[in-house]
C-alpha cells in the first residue's frame, strides 16, 4: 500500500516566525524560576523514595503552589473560567516542567485530560469539567493505552456496551498517568465488534471509583497505573462521545496530538537539563591537568548532543504552532516532534551518563533522576520508533 505523499502533508515550505513575544518569554522565565525554587532535586527525590502509589501528587506543596499561580487555568478557555492561553504557551511551561522533573498532576490534567474533554465533549459538558479544573478543584488524566503499551487509538480493545441509561465498560487500561490519584479519568473504549478507528468512544470516570494499581516504574516522577474497567458503569451524562459517533476518531486523534507534543516538549526539557549538567561537568572536571571538555573526543560529541537537542526543540515548537493555529499538518508535526524528542533522549542519555563517568552511576548523584525520566518519556505516548513509522504512514510510504 505504497501511495506517495499527500501534497499538503508533505509540504515543508512554510514561513515560520519563531520569535517568542514578550508575554511568552515572561511566562517561560517565570515558570523556570518558580520550578527551580519549588521543585529542586530534593523534592523530586521524594518520588523516588516513596513506593509505587504512596504519594498523592495532589497533596504536594508543588501542586498547591501551581494552583495558587493559576497554572491549572492556563489553557482552559476563558468562557470556562480559564486564562485562555494557547498551546504554544502550554508547550513552553511543559518544557520547563520536564526540565525540573516536576512530579505533579499538571501535565496529565492540562495536556491529556483537558484536550480530550474539549475535543470530544459537548460544550456544556466540557464547560463543567474544565471549569472545575481551572479552579484547581480537580485533576484529570487520560486512559488510552492498554497493557500492550500502544497509544494509537486503533489498538484500543476495551469495550463499551450500552446498558440501561448509560454504558458498561470491560477491559484494562495501562500506563495511565496519575491513574491511582486523578479525580477524573477520560477513558477511550470501543463498541463491541468494531475495529480500527471505527466505533471509538470516550467516557469520563470518577477516579476513586476505578480499581487502579500503581505500576512499579523506573521514573516515579511520572507515576503510572493500570486500571480495571470490568463492570464499571458510565451514566449518559458522563459520555464525552459515544461509540459510533463519526466524529470520535478525529476528536481522539486531535487530543492525542496535543498530549504527544506535550510529552515531546517535556522530554526535550529533561534532555536540556541533562545536557546543561553534562556540559558544565565537562568544563569543571579535570584530568591530565586540563578540563575534560577540552578533549576533542568529548567536544564533538557534546556538539552532536546540542544539535540533537536543538533539532528536537525546533520540531516541538513547530508542532506547537501547527496545533495552536490548527494547521492541517498537526498530526505529522506531532509525530515528527515525538520522534525527534526520542532520538534526542537516546543520544543525550547515553552520552550524559558516559561523560559523567563513575559519579553519574551513583544513586547519590542527581543525574539518574533525569535519565530515567527521559527514558520513560520516550515510551509514553509512542516511542521515536512508533512515531517515525507514523510519519512514514502519513507520507504515504507505509501501510
Amino acid at each position: 500500500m505504497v501511495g506517495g505523499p499527500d501534497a499538503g502533508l508533505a509540504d515543508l515550505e512554510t514561513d515560520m516566525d519563531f520569535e517568542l513575544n514578550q508575554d511568552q518569554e515572561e511566562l517561560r522565565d517565570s515558570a523556570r524560576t518558580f520550578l527551580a525554587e519549588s521543585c529542586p532535586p530534593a523534592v523530586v527525590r521524594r518520588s523516588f523514595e516513596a513506593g509505587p502509589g504512596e504519594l498523592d501528587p495532589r497533596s504536594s506543596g508543588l501542586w498547591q503552589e501551581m494552583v495558587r499561580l493559576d497554572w491549572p487555568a492556563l489553557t482552559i478557555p476563558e468562557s470556562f473560567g480559564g486564562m485562555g492561553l494557547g498551546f504554544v504557551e502550554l508547550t513552553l511551561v511543559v518544557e520547563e516542567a520536564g526540565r525540573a522533573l516536576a512530579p505533579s498532576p499538571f501535565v496529565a490534567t492540562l495536556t491529556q485530560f483537558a484536550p480530550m474533554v474539549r475535543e470530544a465533549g459537548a460544550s456544556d459538558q466540557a464547560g463543567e469539567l474544565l471549569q472545575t479544573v481551572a479552579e484547581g478543584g480537580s485533576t484529570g488524566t487520560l486512559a488510552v493505552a492498554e497493557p500492550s503499551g500502544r497509544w494509537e487509538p486503533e489498538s484500543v480493545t476495551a469495550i463499551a456496551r450500552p446498558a440501561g441509561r448509560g454504558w458498561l465498560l470491560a477491559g484494562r487500561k495501562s500506563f495511565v498517568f496519575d491513574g491511582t490519584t486523578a479525580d477524573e479519568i477520560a477513558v477511550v473504549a470501543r463498541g463491541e465488534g468494531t475495529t480500527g478507528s471505527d466505533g471509538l468512544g470516550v467516557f469520563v470516570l470518577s477516579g476513586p471509583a476505578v480499581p487502579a494499581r500503581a505500576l512499579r516504574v523506573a521514573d516515579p516522577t511520572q507515576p503510572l497505573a493500570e486500571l480495571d474497567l470490568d463492570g464499571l458503569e458510565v451514566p449518559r451524562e458522563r459520555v464525552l462521545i459515544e461509540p459510533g459517533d463519526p466524529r470520535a476518531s478525529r476528536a481522539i486523534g486531535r487530543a492525542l496530538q496535543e498530549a504527544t507534543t506535550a510529552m515531546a516538549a517535556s522530554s526535550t526539557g529533561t534532555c536540556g537539563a541533562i545536557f546543561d549538567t553534562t556540559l558544565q561537568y565537562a568544563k569543571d572536571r579535570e584530568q591530565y591537568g586540563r578540563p575534560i571538555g577540552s578533549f576533542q573526543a568529548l567536544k564533538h560529541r557534546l556538539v552532536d548532543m546540542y544539535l540533537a537537542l536543538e533539532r528536537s526543540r525546533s520540531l516541538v515548537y513547530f508542532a506547537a504552532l501547527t496545533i495552536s493555529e490548527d494547521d492541517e499538518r498537526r498530526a505529522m508535526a506531532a509525530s515528527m516532534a515525538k520522534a525527534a524528542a526520542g532520538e534526542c533522549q537516546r543520544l543525550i542519555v547515553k552520552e550524559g551518563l558516559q561523560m559523567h563517568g563513575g559519579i553519574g552511576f551513583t544513586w547519590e548523584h542527581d543525574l539518574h533522576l533525569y535519565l530515567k525520566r527521559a527514558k520513560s518519556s520516550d515510551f509514553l505516548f509512542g516511542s521515536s520508533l512508533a512515531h517515525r513509522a507514523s510519519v512514514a504512514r502519513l507520507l504515504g510510504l507505509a501501510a
Partner: protein
Amino acid sequence: MRLAFEAPVEAFRRELAAWLRDNRPTPSEMKAEPALSTGHAPGWAKRWTRRMFDAGWLVPGWPPELGGRNAAPTEQLVYLEEMARAGVARTTNPQGLGIIAPSILDYGSPEQIASYAVPLLRGEITGCLGMSEPGAGSDLAGLTTRAVLDGDRFVINGQKVWTSGANHADFCFLFCRTDPDAPKHKGISVILVDMDTPGVNVRPLPDIVDPEYPELNEVFLSDVLVPAGNLVGTANSGWAMANGSLAHERGMVWVTSVIELENATKRLLGEAPGMLERLPIGERAEAATMLAGLFIDAQAVRCLGYRGFGNLLHGGSAPEQALMKLFSSEARQRLALVAAELQGAEAIQGDEKFGAILPLSTSDPSPWLDQYFRSFGLTISAGSSEIQRNIIAEKVLGLPRA
C-alpha cells in the same frame, strides 16, 4: 510565534515573484550556454546579474547604488527563499557575490570598490577566493604564500589549492603572508590579483564526480607583481577579513541550503513509492522509516534556521551559522546515501550525466550516488564538519580550547 510572516512581507514576495516571471533567464537560454565553473559567467548570466543589479534585486538589503533596495531582514529572508524556490541563482559566481564583493565594500579603497566590487556586482567580472594551501587547510592561519612589498608593488610567491572557479575567474581575493615574523594570525593580508597577471598559473583538479568539468584548482604564483594599491584594507588585517568575509550574509545563507535540502527531499519522496515497490516486503518498513527520518531532518533544519532568525530579529545573536552548516550538510549527505541505497542496483549503474553542475539549478537532477559523493564538497569545504564542531564547541558551548 506564528506560521507565516506579516502581510507587508507577503506583498514584497509577490512583487519579487512577478518580476522574476518577466525577467528570469529561460531554461533553454541557460542550457545552451552552461556555466563551466563558479568562476565562469556565460553571456546570459552576465546579462541576468546586471538586470538584477539595475532593478535592485541583486542584494535587496543593500542600497540601490549597490544593486539593492534597502530591504528589511525579513524581506531579505523571503527574497532568498523565493530565489531558491524559483530555481534561479543570482549569479554563477556565488563566492564573488556572497563573500568577495561584500568584503571589498567593507574593507577596500574607493578605487577597489569602483574597479572590482561594483563590476563584480554588475556581472561584468568574476572573482575567486584564494585561501587554502597544500599546508594550510583547516589550519588556514598557517598559510605561507608570501607577498613582499617592493617599492610600489608586491612580489607574490606561493601556491593555493582547492580554489573554486580559479580556472575561469577574472581576479583572486588572495590571502598571503605579509609579515613572516608576526604570530601566524597577525601576519596575513588580502591582495587583489588579476588572474591574467604574468606568473599566475592555474592547474585544474578534476573531481571524483564530474572530472570533465573541473571546478577546483591549484593556483601557482611565481614572482607575481601586483600594484601596492591592491592591498585590501590595512596590512596584516587579513585574519579579521577571513572571519568577517566568511560571515557575510550570516543569518541567511542557510536559507539556500534548507531549500536545496527540501528540493532533494521532494525529489526523493517522489521516487520513494517506486523504490519501495521494488523492495521485498520484509525490507520495506525499515526503508520507509529511514525515509521518514530524512523528511524529519529536512523539516528540523528549516525550523532551526527560522528559530535562529527569530532570535536575530529579536536583537539576539544570529542563527549559529556553524550549526546550520553542520546540520544541513550532514543531512544532505544522509539523504543522498539513503536514496542511493534504496535505489539499489540502479544506483551503481547510472552512466547518465548532466554535465557541469549548474549553480543555477537548485534541484539537482543528477544520480543519487553522484550526489552522495558530491555532498562531501559540503562537509569538507568552507570549514569541514570537524572544524564546525570545534567552532560550536568553543564559541557556542564555551568549551575550553585544546
